């Protein structure tokens, strides 16, 4: 087992950290999802939420027995934020991966790298990890900040704390990384054909639609992101990832990169 992928990963991370556009774009996600949105929830749910309002949400709140309507409403909103924590590991890697491929193409650095004895599979793995690892770590840290912030406010002001549903654990530990891998491979394939960061936007857009779809459907009570559903989504992503890794590895060969990536 070669450790050359670590060399590629280290170099890519070094570059990413010096790229203001990527760093600032990546910083907006945690700020938005773990600070802005929870504060919005906490301060916009009115004190006079009634049983009737809760009932209007249908049976989605059945799991919040024993809470006041307001508490149930807040707890429900907090739990239903889960898709945002799938969105983060989906969108953040597209920035890094598409930039790293587009950047190598623009600077003409692919050829000197491919001239070394490094295996193309190590380059691909290094680039994948350089995109997946920071995205997943930032997602986890954001989640911790999110829960800490929510609970600080709820325990002080409302006298209760929110324990995340068990599906959060699966979503954060498994589904998120699987989405990140999907988005890296998709970004690499798209940016192989495109010369700039538009590739990142295209892949992000393709991911945002279904994930935000989950969020909206859930908010309107049309689905519940239960543990079963999260596990089923993860299984499907796993299969998709395997297929994409196969295709990506086939495309990521010296000859193809130098002659067809233009």
């Amino acid at each position, binding site marked *: 087992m070669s450790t*050359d992928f670590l060399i590629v990963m280290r170099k890519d991370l070094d570059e990413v950290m010096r790229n203001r556009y990527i760093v600032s774009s990546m910083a907006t996600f945690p700020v938005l999802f773990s600070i802005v949105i929870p504060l919005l929830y906490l301060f916009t749910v009115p004190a006079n939420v009634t049983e009737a309002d809760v009932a209007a949400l249908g049976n989605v709140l059945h799991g919040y027995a024993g809470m006041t309507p307001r508490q149930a409403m807040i707890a429900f909103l907090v739990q239903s934020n889960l898709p945002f924590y799938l969105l983060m590991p989906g969108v953040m890697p597209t920035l890094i991966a598409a930039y790293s491929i587009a950047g190598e193409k623009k600077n003409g650095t692919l050829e000197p790298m491919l*001239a070394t*004895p490094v295996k193309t599979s190590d380059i691909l793995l290094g680039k994948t990890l350089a995109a997946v690892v920071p995205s997943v770590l930032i997602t986890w840290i954001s989640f911790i900040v999110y829960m800490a912030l929510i609970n600080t406010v709820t325990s002080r002001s409302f006298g209760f704390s929110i324990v995340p549903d068990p599906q959060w654990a699966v979503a954060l530990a498994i589904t998120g990384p699987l989405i990140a891998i999907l988005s890296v491979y998709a970004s690499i394939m798209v940016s192989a054909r495109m010369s700039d960061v538009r590739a990142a936007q295209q892949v992000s857009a393709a991911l945002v639609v279904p994930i935000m779809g989950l969020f909206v459907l859930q908010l309107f009570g049309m689905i519940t992101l239960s543990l079963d559903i999260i596990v089923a989504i993860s299984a499907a992503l796993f299969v998709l990832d395997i297929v994409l890794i196969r295709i990506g590895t086939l495309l990521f060969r*010296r*000859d193809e990169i130098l002659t067809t990536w233009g």
Partner: protein
Amino acid sequence: MIETQALGRRFGNYTAVEGLDLSVKAGEVFGFLGPNGAGKTTTVRMLACLIRPTAGTARVDGLRVDDPGDARRIRRTVGILTERSGFYDNLTAYKNLRFYADLYRVDRRKADARIDDMLDAFGMSRWKASAVGGFSKGMRQKLALIRCLVHDPKVLFFDEPTAGLDPESARYVRDAIVRLKQDGRTIFLCTHNLDEAERLCDRVAIVNRRLLYEGTPERLRDAAYGRRIIVRLERMMGQVHNAVSGLDAVAAVEESGDGMILEVRDPDRNCADVVDAIVRAGGRIRSVGELRHSLEDVYMKLVGDRCEH
């Protein structure tokens, strides 16, 4: 050190290189000349195992370019100065070089020492910790030279190393090539600068998709034109013309003013006889000289001839 057999590469249905048979000896500087689009970069990429041949094969240091295991060993053995000197603009010169040294698995301490030595030798030490983004084209090319040497390769491929450089940097690069040859490295130099080829190369090949010529620059000139002698007389006379055109050693005679341009076979041996014949026919000689064509004339003739076909 480098041998190709019927080496060829197609892109779709366009043939970029065809039936290339070359042999480059260890320690020589081999010039690979051809106009734009002649297939120079394609050939170098095949020899450095960056792209695969679609026909024929080649060996570098005894290893086959089309064998995956050998290809890895070849990549370790050769250095390539690519057409574009690509660097990571927001990383420093040192970090860029270390990245490649690491990928070549050069021992960390050895790599640092080599990088320092070479930065010093190329007058670049001052810029070690500066981001490459701000470097001039000449500085980048120096850095690219250092990069292709970090793993101490036996064989070097230079793809138009002076193209687009200011004269001073170009000269610097040429001097570096001379030093690298003195180190005993084999150098495969793609260029369309004939003057450069003539000055640096032991042997040259002229290509335009296929091989048009291979040999020393001198032999190339002789092969294309023969060697010609220019004789200036006090006065041109008919007897003199007749006397020289009757000689076996003279292939052609062309009068020009008070002189003649003679195409002489094997002039080193026959020139004295030709002069004798002129003197015996009553010609009074003012000067005898050799008329040499530049490599450029030869090149234009070879490449031009093929284009008309």
